[in-house]
């Protein structure tokens, strides 16, 4: 598919599968023969299908961050890491797809591949990549680590617990890249730049608001196999925003103002 449509992913095999092989080998070592008991299977299939797409979009975000770091003259090892993280996310995408398959198959998910990553508002190369990094690493990946850790503890399945542990181990590095970048860029960013980055972080956080709307169309009760009920997700999210996003950004002079 291209542009808008139902989300699908495929692999071409041959030398390209062999090249990716060492990076994805740990997926094959997971306990796939486990018998899965899934009372809320529809909810969980939806979670893992959406998870596959989130990882796919994160791969695009890191590919663009790597390009932006090159344009900004950032340290090459940091740039290499960002490029490498795109591969991590592609491996996570495959893993999420296989977990959805293990639960009975993916759900039909409507996506727009032309809109995988929000473009930055800033034009100057350093501030533009800083904006991308704050959104992706300092907000998205920092929240992901905390929430997937909570989902791992509640998984109730050796397969899903091991899968989530593998993903979280990678995502922790992805979040750290953001704060390492900001420490490197400290003397290169102005006070106005920091206000701009705070606004970008606040906007990224505000975009999560629809997750917390109380509605009969929202499924709120499933926990386990990677899903969290609202009673577990909502406080974990609020705590992660405070401790993993707002506080470390404030330490770097980026004061994020969020709506109460």
């Amino acid at each position, binding site marked *: 598919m291209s542009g808008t449509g139902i989300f699908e992913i495929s692999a071409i095999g041959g030398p390209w599968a062999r090249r990716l092989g060492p990076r994805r080998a740990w997926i094959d070592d997971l306990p796939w023969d486990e018998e899965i008991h899934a009372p809320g299977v529809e909810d969980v299939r939806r979670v893992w299908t959406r998870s596959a797409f989130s990882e796919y979009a*994160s791969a695009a975000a890191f590919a663009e961050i790597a390009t932006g770091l090159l344009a900004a003259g950032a340290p090459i090892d940091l740039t290499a890491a960002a490029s490498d993280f795109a591969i991590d996310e592609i491996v996570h995408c495959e893993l999420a*797809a296989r977990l959805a398959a293990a639960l009975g198959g993916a759900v039909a*998910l409507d996506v727009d591949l032309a809109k995988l990553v929000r473009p930055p508002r800033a034009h100057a190369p350093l501030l533009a990549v800083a904006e991308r990094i704050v959104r992706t690493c300092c907000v998205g990946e920092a929240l*992901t680590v905390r929430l997937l850790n909570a989902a791992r503890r509640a998984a109730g399945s050796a397969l899903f617990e091991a899968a989530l542990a593998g993903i979280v181990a990678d995502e922790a590095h992805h979040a750290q890249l953001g704060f390492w970048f900001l420490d490197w860029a400290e003397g290169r960013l102005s006070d106005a730049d920091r206000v701009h980055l705070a606004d970008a972080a606040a906007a990224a956080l505000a975009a999560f608001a629809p997750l917390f709307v109380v509605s009969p169309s929202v499924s709120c009760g499933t926990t386990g196999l990677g899903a969290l009920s609202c009673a577990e997700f909502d406080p974990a999210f609020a705590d992660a925003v405070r401790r993993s996003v707002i506080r470390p950004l404030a330490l770097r002079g980026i004061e994020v103002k969020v709506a109460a």
Partner: protein
Amino acid sequence: MARRHRIATLLLLSAGCATQVAGALTDADGYPLVGNVVAKGSPRPRPRPPAPPPPRQAAFETGEAAEKSA
């Protein structure tokens, strides 16, 4: 002359003939929410619109309609 590669892609994720479609979690402008925070099982899917008939069937139905109107 270079040999062409025989391509056979392996489908890793496909919803097949699902009757309902869920939306990706996006912001107001249609960009995906950052990170992977989809552990919360919301919102529920909506009915999937029927796919257009394959070209041959469409041609047949068009022909049939033409016969009826004739």
